[in-house]
């Protein structure tokens, strides 16, 4: 199945029951999904692997809260789109999250269909960005072919 994944998603939520199920369901729909129960774990995973979209619960008790995690995530992978998920009407934190570069926010409970649509939109955006970067790189390489080695080095990191 892994090879069929359209894109990779990281779900961060302290609600274990939710996390397990959503991972399974998204996986079933061809979206390679991993889960993290808290912010630290999520950041760890992000450093290890590449994710296209992150679904992040804004309010998590203990440890890092959603906003903090988001800030760190953007440092690690600026191009990865983050969708905020909230059960609370804490619009202020949602707005803050948007300012920090989150793609959008969703209010719990959200239907899977809606969630998938939103994830796809975020992925498309990210793809678009990647595309632009790729074409910019191609242009650059065509002008300075020597840089291809440099590029590969960076990619390895």
């Amino acid at each position, binding site marked *: 199945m892994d090879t069929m994944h359209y894109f990779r998603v990281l779900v961060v939520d302290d609600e274990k029951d939710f996390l397990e199920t959503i991972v399974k*369901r998204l996986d079933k729909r061809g979206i390679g999904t991993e889960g993290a129960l808290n912010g630290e774990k999520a950041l760890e995973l992000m450093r290890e692997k590449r994710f296209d979209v992150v679904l992040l619960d804004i309010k998590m008790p203990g440890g890092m809260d959603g906003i903090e995690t988001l800030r760190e995530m953007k440092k690690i992978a600026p191009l990865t789109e983050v969708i905020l998920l909230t059960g*609370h*009407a804490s619009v202020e934190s949602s707005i803050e999250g948007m300012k920090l570069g989150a793609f959008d926010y969703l209010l*719990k409970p959200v239907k899977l269909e809606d969630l998938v649509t939103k994830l796809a939109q975020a992925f498309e955006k990210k793809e678009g960005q990647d595309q632009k970067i790729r074409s910019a790189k191609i242009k650059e390489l065509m002008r300075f072919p020597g840089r291809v080695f440099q590029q590969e080095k960076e990619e390895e990191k």
Partner: protein
Amino acid sequence: METSRYTGLQRKIILLTLLVSLAPLIVLGATIYYQFAGMYRAKITQQITYRSRGLAQAVELFLKERTAILCSMADTHHFNEMIDEANLSRIFEIMNSRAGAFVDLGVIDGNGRHLAYIGPYDLKGLNYYQQPWFGEVMAKGVYISDVYMGYRRLPHFIIAVRRQEKSHSWILRATIDSGVFEGIVKAAQVGKTGDAFIVNKSGVYQTQPRFEGRILTKSKLETSSFGGGTTGVEKKNSEEKQILFAGTWINHGKWLVVIRQGVTEEMTGLFSTRNMEIAIVLSGILAIILMTVFTTRMTISRLRAADVKAGEMNAQLMQSDKLAALGKMAAGIAHEINNPLQVIVEKTGWMQDLLNEEELQQSKNIDEFRTSINKIEEHVERARKVVHGMLGFARKMEPHMEDVDINAVINQTIDLLGNYARINNITITSELSPDLPIIAADGAQLQQVFMNLVSNAIDAIGKDGRIDIKSRRMGPQIHIEVSDNGPGIPEEKQKRIFDPFFTTKETGKGTGLGLWVTHNIVEKMGGAVNMRSEEGKGTTFTVRIPIVIPEKK
């Protein structure tokens, strides 16, 4: 209950004010009147005593003159000359030409024999020795008699003087026509009720009084009540009218010159003054009463209006506080519910996913599972709607400001709900003020407010009815009224109408959040929502939105 409290207060204020302002006025009026009346009466009494004294002096002067003439005649002539009737007649003529009022003149010797007489009566030869006046004149030298009715039915009196000539003495006696001094007395009978007369010691009239009684009859006057000098006496006559008397004793205390004056006539001035004073005081009282009642009423009505306003503001403040607290709580609860709901959604979703797996398609209860899962999803959806509705306003807490034409928003609302209303045979009419300014507000939120109010009105009416929507500018605000002619809201429910989850609709039909959200939206805009409802007549919601002029772009 409330009304009686105000009327009680009003009555108290009026009574107190009247008491405090009227009492001094009345006391002052009465004091002035009694002081003035006292002074006036004293003045009248004084006037009468003056008149009485003046008259007494005139009468006394008259008597003294006559006595003096008689004395000088007696003193300048000898007894022998006097008893010569020719001589006596000459003297009589001289006396009459100088002074007048002498009717006759006679000479009486020491033994009381009338020796010579000049006059109309035949008195010569009479002996007066036994008469009491003879003894008196012999003892005192001068005697003036009381008035008596003479031979010709004319009032007279006698003056007799004694002349001591060596060892024997004789008497010169003259009759005086009292008509002459009656003239003097009558001159003092002034005004309508003024009278002047003379009485003797036992109260017999010596002159003809103007009223009551005849000369030489006994008067009702108590002469003993007049002291020495001039005394004023007040009496009441048979008609209960007050009469003032002033009497002066003359003729060595034998006669009393009396001035009689009806008080009423003299008091006319006082009475007109009194009437004027009463009129002034009464009009003052009337003015005070009117002013007091008027100002008190005005004060009370202002107070009442202020109380009502304060009460309304209090109620509104309490309502806002309550709703704010409930809002916070609701947001907290929402979070706690949303997370489990999300888990339920995922778990049921997962079950559904699994049901589609091939092995399970053969299970005979597969349809039952499907139905159950669908039902769970349906009810999660229901719960989600409730919670989201509760957070509906909060999610849009950051209002999106745009230029809003309130009338356009209302018309849009009417268009949106028009069909729903028509199905239920409800007419929506609008009366929108054309000169409303464009304001800066969140149009979507306003839309939600009007949608909530109008759809509530439709639900309240049920079937057949009408809804009126009005908009107008009121100073710095725009007022929008949504009235329906539905059944109204019972009073006990009116207080809770803006509370979250309070609904009058059937379970499952209304979330009880519409008006709560409406209230919160309008309050966030700096406005207010009010409700007036009368059972059986309908309900009116008034939305007041402050006019915020959009910034120029």
